[in-house]
């Protein structure tokens, strides 16, 4: 019997199909892996590309904030409070001198005592690059005092405020950069914590099904039905006052993830249920593949891209959560600098009327959130290149 030896090599060979003439681009598509197909599709989504680039810039800013910011975010200047953003000029009276700012003329209104600043056109402070400033550790690796830009060391006593100063004369530009470090990392960290809970709960729910699934789903519905702000308020009110900044930071992350995991658990469960029914999963099982191999080789790749997309889409919620908590005074507190903390300091009528530049952190929040949403949209659209 022909079928009994392990290699039926000498068997009659069915005529292979005639070779087809293939354009190189076609051949490229035919051998393209899932990730390549996703990348090509993602590239076509212009808004998502822009969002991706903006987010990249934001994170570069957050990582290198000491280098990019000219001043220490907590260094105050008694005589320079509520300075409006200074314009960077290139030409002085028609003459090119490179980037510079004019000096500040401080005047006090004799009636209202309000201090106003005017550019002093007679004084020119040239911007220098890679200037020495306060000392810091770059990436925690080595100590240095070089900053990307600032005024030259010979102009002691003068400063450049690209986005103005706050009520204590602290540089807003530096503060926003430092704040992005906290606000953006809380988003990432929070998503990873909720991802861990979510993939566990969703995986168990989708894999075992039955009563466990029902229970987990009802718990998720219950958690989702609680209004988030009151819940956060109650939980953060229970945080001990004497906790350090770092402890508080992680407490906030855990708080945010406690709510955030539910959405991810649903996504994971849904994908699990969908992929479990695919014929190729059954085929693998019939060939004798182990459960572990089926999950790792067949199921995980099929929903990894979806999970990455929904992770991206849930980061903005985390960032907003931190911002709202801190804005309400329940999250992080000064001297920690985050976007929410900065916005909390801008929380009065005086600011809105007299120093609107203190609301710039809000612009940063909106830009970051929008970019994350665009990026997430693009990723979601590219997530399944095989959808028919």
């Amino acid at each position: 019997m022909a079928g009994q030896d392990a290699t039926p090599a000498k068997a009659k060979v069915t005529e292979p199909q005639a070779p087809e003439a293939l354009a190189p681009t076609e051949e490229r598509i035919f051998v393209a892996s899932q990730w390549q197909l996703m990348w090509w599709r993602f590239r076509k989504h212009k808004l998502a590309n822009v969002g991706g680039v903006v987010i990249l810039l934001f994170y570069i800013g957050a990582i290198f904030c000491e280098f990019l910011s000219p001043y220490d975010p907590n260094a105050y200047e008694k005589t320079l409070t509520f300075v409006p953003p200074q314009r960077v000029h290139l030409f002085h009276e028609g003459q090119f001198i490179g980037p510079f700012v004019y000096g500040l003329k401080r005047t006090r209104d004799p009636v209202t005592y309000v201090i106003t600043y005017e550019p002093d056109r007679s004084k020119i402070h040239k911007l220098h690059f890679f200037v020495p400033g306060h000392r810091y550790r770059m990436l925690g690796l080595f100590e240095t005092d070089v900053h990307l830009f600032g005024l030259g060391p010979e102009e002691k006593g003068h400063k450049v405020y690209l986005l103005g100063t706050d009520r204590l004369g602290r540089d807003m530009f530096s503060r926003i950069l430092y704040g992005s470090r906290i606000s953006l990392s809380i988003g990432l960290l929070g998503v990873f914590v909720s991802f861990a809970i979510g993939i566990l709960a969703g995986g168990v729910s989708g894999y075992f099904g039955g009563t466990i699934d029902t229970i987990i789903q009802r718990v998720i519905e219950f958690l989702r039905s609680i209004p988030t702000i009151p819940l956060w308020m109650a939980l953060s009110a229970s945080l001990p006052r004497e906790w350090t900044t770092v402890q508080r930071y992680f407490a906030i992350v855990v708080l945010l993830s406690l709510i955030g995991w539910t959405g991810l658990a649903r996504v994971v469960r849904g994908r699990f249920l969908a992929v479990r029914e695919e014929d190729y999963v059954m085929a693998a099982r019939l060939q004798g593949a182990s459960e572990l191999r089926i999950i790792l080789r067949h199921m995980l790749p099929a929903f990894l891209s979806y999970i990455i997309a929904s992770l991206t889409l849930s980061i903005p919620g985390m960032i907003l959560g931190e911002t709202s908590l801190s804005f309400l005074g329940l999250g992080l507190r000064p001297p920690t600098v985050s976007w929410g903390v900065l916005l909390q300091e801008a929380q009065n009528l005086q600011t809105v009327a007299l120093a609107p530049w203190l609301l710039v952190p809000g612009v940063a929040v909106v830009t970051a959130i929008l970019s994350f949403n665009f990026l997430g949209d693009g990723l979601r659209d590219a997530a399944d290149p095989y959808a028919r």
Partner: protein
Amino acid sequence: MAGDSKSGGNSTPILEVRNLKKHFPITRGFMRRVVGHVKAVDGVTFTVPEGKTLGLVGESGCGKTTTGRCILRAIQPTSGEIIFYDRNLGPVNVAEADKETLRQLRRNMQMIFQDPYSSLNPRMTLLDIVGEPLVVNKVCKGKELEERVAELLRLVGLRPEYMRRYPHAFSGGQRQRIGIARALALNPQLVVCDEPVSALDVSIQAQTLNLLQDLQEQFHLSYLFIAHDLSVVEHVSDAVAVMYVGKLVETAETEELYLNPLHPYTEALLSAVPRPDPRAEKERIILTGEVPDPANPPSGCYFHPRCRYAQPICSQEEPPLREARPGHFAACHFAGELSLRGVL
């Protein structure tokens, strides 16, 4: 082997299914209380002779696919025996085999799926797809694996150079060939073909059927060929079993069944087979009503509400599957008494 004689009937079996049942529970509410059962397969008995093809036909929802999946233990049957004559282990009851036995059995029984799209993992290359059974069963790897996959691809009429491509590069017919190559990788004895051509264009169907027949000759394969298209079944099967709402209503050798159907349901199915002769006088028997709900089947003979020969007894007593003519079984009270029209 001994059973190679063309006469059939007495040849050695490769698979014997006895009184196979699969009831799916219907659950309600939070505690998943069982409120009833869908009797998808309800006492099916048949034999697949070695090196032959048994066609299993019926309307959609009649339990054909469930039967096929029970045989491979892709789903756990409720009761019944599935005896598979493994070339290494001898006769084994698949329905009660433990995990390790099952793993060994599955090297010798494989499946070809209906949907050539969902049955191939789009994220794996042909080398990975066709090579997977060889890898997970530790048959070969590396260069040897590539050679074996190339050989399998050539066998099903695909160019070995396609090995690095992903399934999205192929048409439905080509994908089905990939599925066939994968099923043959471990050199099985029995292949359950679950409607392997019903998702394909008619022109491709014939090619694929011919390929399956060539492969059967070369490797002495036995097929359980599940289909709803009687003209396809006629082309490939040595014997045919007709299913209706989870039960067998008629089994016979192909020619016998097509010439002398004994069950009115078979007659109705046969009248729907297209014939190439335009002058052939033809009356289509249009079945009225719906296929009964397998959770709530009618009394007596399941077919009686749609049967045009139904008598009072049909709604009261369930007819057993009995041998009305030599080698020809039918589950009808009037098997052999009615004059039913076949084809050919």
